[in-house]
């Protein structure tokens, strides 16, 4: 079954849209077609959040609201969703509680970032189960830049207005909204356009595999958090786009086994966080600092890996754990170690018509330690200067196994072979035995200078993160080795 249009809900009514360019963005549609200018463009690359809108979808019988950056979200990606923008919130002259709190706390100055901030907080408020905490608010706002206020009044407004399960007209209309979404739900393969220019969204992997074999020149689109910039900044006009967002089943499945975790490539980074954290608690900070709430709501784990970025935050962690990936081409399945997938800068072992469908991650054994550290200029919503992941096996107090991988140190995420070898035999109680391995790691990579960091800094960081790992696994508690999350101890009073 095929469908020649996308369907979504806007201003409470269903819209069936066929006449749109495959590479049109949601923000363009809102501002130029719908003339809804409340949503702003601040940067056009998904970094400032002024264009934040909320997409609501049905998930297991409940409404799932996600904030997204409309500037880099392609129009076709709204298929099946309810679009909520800042103009939807107030009812007549009565402001929504989020809006009222922002006014009461003087949370806007110039006002340009405000619509995006209101929508990020709206998404937070609608999904809040109880009163939100300050770290939750900061997490929700990491993708919203404000240059005027210094954020304090915005955080206060959020703390006041996101005080528990939402009791507003949106919550009251949940059943109706779910019904409207259900009415649009089908299992059709979406194909809008012609055989030379189209936006397609197959509903099954079989349909995807067949379509991609037929159009191996098509662009595979997952969350568009990187591809969106090819369009808005590099002004590319990919004529054929196959979006993976309608795939369910194995493509978005989480299989949590005792020995390994299998993640479908289509899981958003937001949805992949909880299972990843079951591998090791260090994934909590890595995922919290991965992009922003908007980026994690759109971007997928498969997209992050398949894209082959040398600075993706997940790849080095998974390489250190020995993850494998599964690719499919037509009906052929292929498995290979993740590290083997990355051949060179932005070049991957992916054949024509082949796509990444699953990631299989072995759980670290009980006698092995894992550590992952991200270092960036700014803690939140910044691309890593260096990301180091360490998987260390111990016999008593001696290192007998080391698998170390870095992002930001080379043209691809890659391992540190010399350091891994030199680490064998380290005595945690004799720091003198650490020196050789610490030196070795500085020889494993030849990083570059760029806007994020100098080569010298990157090299020093790689060494120091290894040192920090050894200090931590030798027994120094993370509360005094890590600055992220550090809080000033209160004096006894």
């Amino acid at each position, binding site marked *: 079954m095929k469908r020649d249009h996308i369907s979504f809900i806007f201003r409470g009514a269903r819209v069936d849209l066929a006449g749109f360019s495959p590479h049109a963005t949601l923000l363009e549609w809102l501002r130029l077609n719908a003339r809804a*200018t409340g949503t*702003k463009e601040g940067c056009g690359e998904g970094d400032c959040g002024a264009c934040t809108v909320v997409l609501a979808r049905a998930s297991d019988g409940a409404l799932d609201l996600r904030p997204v950056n409309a500037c880099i979200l392609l129009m076709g990606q709204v298929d099946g969703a309810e679009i909520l923008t800042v103009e939807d919130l107030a009812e007549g002259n009565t402001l929504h509680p989020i809006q009222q709190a922002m006014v*009461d706390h003087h949370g*806007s100055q110039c006002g340009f970032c405000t619509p995006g901030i209101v929508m990020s907080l709206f998404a937070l408020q609608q999904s809040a189960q109880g009163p939100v905490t300050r770290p939750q608010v900061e997490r929700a706002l990491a993708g919203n830049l404000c240059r005027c206020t210094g954020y304090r009044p915005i955080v206060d407004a959020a703390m006041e207005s996101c005080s528990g399960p939402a009791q507003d007209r949106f919550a009251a209309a949940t059943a109706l909204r779910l019904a409207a979404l259900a009415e649009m739900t089908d299992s059709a393969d979406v194909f809008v356009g012609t055989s030379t220019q189209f936006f397609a969204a197959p509903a099954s992997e079989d349909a995807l595999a067949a379509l991609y074999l037929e159009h191996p020149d098509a662009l595979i689109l997952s969350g568009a958090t990187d591809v969106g910039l090819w369009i808005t900044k590099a002004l590319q006009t990919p004529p054929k786009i196959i979006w993976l967002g309608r795939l369910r089943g194995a493509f978005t499945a989480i299989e949590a086994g005792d020995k390994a975790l299998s993640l479908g490539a289509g899981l958003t980074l937001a949805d992949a966080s909880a299972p990843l954290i079951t591998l090791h608690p260090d994934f909590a900070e890595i995922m919290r600092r991965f992009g922003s709430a908007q980026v994690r709501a759109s971007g997928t784990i498969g997209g992050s890996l398949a894209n082959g970025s040398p600075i993706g935050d997940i790849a080095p962690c998974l390489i250190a754990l020995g993850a494998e990936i599964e690719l499919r081409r037509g009906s052929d399945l292929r498995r290979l170690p993740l590290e083997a997938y990355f051949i060179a800068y932005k070049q991957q072992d992916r054949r024509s018509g082949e796509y990444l469908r699953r990631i299989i991650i072995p759980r670290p054994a009980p006698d092995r330690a894992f550590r992952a550290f991200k270092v960036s200029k700014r803690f*939140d919503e910044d691309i890593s200067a260096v990301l180091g992941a360490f998987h260390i096996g111990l016999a008593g107090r001696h290192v007998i196994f080391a698998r170390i991988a870095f992002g930001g140190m080379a043209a691809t995420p890659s391992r540190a072979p010399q350091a891994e070898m030199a680490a064998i035999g380290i005595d945690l109680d004799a720091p003198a035995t650490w020196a050789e391995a610490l030196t070795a790691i500085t020889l494993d990579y030849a990083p570059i200078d760029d806007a994020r960091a100098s080569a010298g800094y990157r090299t020093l960081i790689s060494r*120091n993160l290894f040192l920090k790992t050894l200090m931590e696994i030798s027994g120094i508690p993370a509360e*005094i080795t890590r600055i992220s999350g550090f809080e000033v101890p209160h004096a006894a009073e």
Partner: protein
Amino acid sequence: MPPNDSSLLGAESLAVVSHPVRHDSAALHVRGAAAYIDDIREPQGALHVAPGLSPATRGRIKTLNLDPVRAAPGVVAVLTPADVPGHNNTSHFDDDPLIADGAVVFRGQVTFAVVARTRDEARRAARLAQVEIEEETPILTIEDALAANATVLPDYDFKIGDPHAALAAAQHRLEGKLRIGGQEHFYLEGQAAFAIPGESGEMLVHSSTQDPTELQNVVAGVLGMPNAFVTVETRRMGGAFGGKETQAAQTGALAALAAYVTKQPCKLRLDRDDDFAITGKRHDFRADWTVGFDDEGRIAAYDVALNARCGCSVDMSPGVVDRAMFHAANAYHLPATNIMSRRLFTNTVSNTAFRGFGGPQGMLAIERVMDAVAHATGRDPLDVRKANLYTAGANVTPYGQTVEDPDVLASLIDKLEASSDYRARRAQIAAWNETSPIIKRGLALTPVQFGISFTLQHLNQAGALVHVYQDGSVHLNHGGTEMGQGLFTKVAQVVAEEFGIPLDWVRITATNTAKVPNASPTAASAGSDLNGMAAQAAAREIKGRMIAFATERYDATPDQIRFRDGLVVIGNQTVPFPELAKLCRQNRVQLSHAGFYKTPDIHWDRAARTGRPFLYYAYGAACAEVAIDVLTGENKVTRVDILHDAGRSLNPALDIGQIEGGFVQGMGWLTTEELVFDAKGRLATHAPSTYKIPVASDVPADFRVALLDEPNRAATIYRSKAVGEPPLMLAIAVYSALLDALHSIDPGKQVQLDAPATPERILKAAEALKVV
């Protein structure tokens, strides 16, 4: 109210002024209903403009083939210098061409512009030009410029006493070099303008500008028209911070030129990456300093060379670098000093105004010196600072102005020292650092003394236009612009107070050069001081006429008449304000007035290096605590206490907003915001993906901000003080606290830390200290 001066009344007697009224547009902001330039609905046939940027950093354009641009879909016109009917220039100094003509002086310079049916078509077409540039070796860094002796303006200095002799005689001497980074404004709304041609060559330009009058002048110059044919209107900006003072001119003038050539309404909204490339930023500096001091840390002599990277043209650099010099002593009495400045030319975008206008750079240098002196003498940095403050007996600045109220800052610092629990925390932190191997903590308390007034004297004037309509509603217009700071709200509060009417009877209207002409830019923190006074003058004039009428009509004397709560109380009668307005109209009393204000008591003789450039000083102090990771350089601000002097605040809520926002912006300047130019002169930090301003989690959870709340001793509007820029410099406390944390690694050494203190620079400083 001529009979009594309400500015001397206490805050408790005020009905609207000094109340924490909300920003006038707050309810619109939160609904997405506040209109910015790109939200103005275009009439049919409106066209869009996109600039073509130079791919080379310095050279001569050999060929510029625009045929592929013209042939691109949707293109209506391509603009080149040949299309400019007037003067191809946007600056007072005639060195900022609207469109490059022959020479290219920085990468990203506009070399042509495309006009097309849609913005998308214009942007695509702009990339199709075939440009051949004969490249020359660019001057990129401060060192390049010093080596080439390349300047945009002559050197300039202030000298007090005999600094060289005093340095030689001092008990101790230290010297150093401090690099101070620039800063991108990152206003959330990028540069934007919408030009609509009218009859007989008239042009209306809606612009996101802090200086409508200047844009009017530039557009008239470019089009070769009298100013009277050009109207510029600005309702609000989505942030500006100095970046839309001169820098809005090119966008506005290109839109106007496009409208002139095509005879259609034309809009230009810059793409964010283009905005980064084309528009100027905060000046980066290298301060080369030498200080002489005694065992107590008292400074005997200070010699500093402020080497400022001005970029490829003059722009605002005269004022910016002068202001860096004016603030090179901050709050300290320097018995002998030489403050020298160099205004360096580089082949980079022309640096411009940015909140603080050079003041922050001058101030950071002396604060850094205070820490160096403290570390050298082993004294607490706060004690060293206090030992050097201006006092009643030692209160003349290096530029000859007497600081008349040094007691205000001294007592402010004492209050903050107590309320922030500085001494106890100092001890706790020292104990922590003794035993913590990786995380080191630091603490600092630094003052700000910022001079208020434009140093270019003629800008210290303002006009306002007030109409009272026959229904009692009031139309307010003035030359100031709204960029989020709440100026419109504050001025409306003043007018409502004067007429004794509710605030919502005053209708705030867009800044428009046809209503209030010859205005100054909204800058130098002076918006409320100047426009508030002008609006007060207009309201008082109208009120005076109403009173004169009422005395006749009701047989009363002026002192029997009071305006309050929307009523006019005349002896024992009460007349609603609207009724009196209606009666005035019926009796031919003029209910409109254009008010005017010029700042008294200021003068500055630049050649003689003496005078009183500032009407008064705004004071503040901040105490910041930080933690650093000596293995990675990562850092975190854990607590900030601020006490700031906004005089008797016109609006405490808005002023707190300026203080917090300014502080966080300054914190970004000194920590994560790094401008990186590559070896070819390309700005590598070209967008928010690579240029990192603070986000919510960077702001300390423990953030305590208070107002001093004492009336300004100078006769300003309701005895308030300017508050736009000074708080930015409170963030120097963060930099100083980072120095303090680093210093704990080896208290025997001086710390070498340039700004911004990125994790990389902090780690580099830590490594240097670790070397035995």
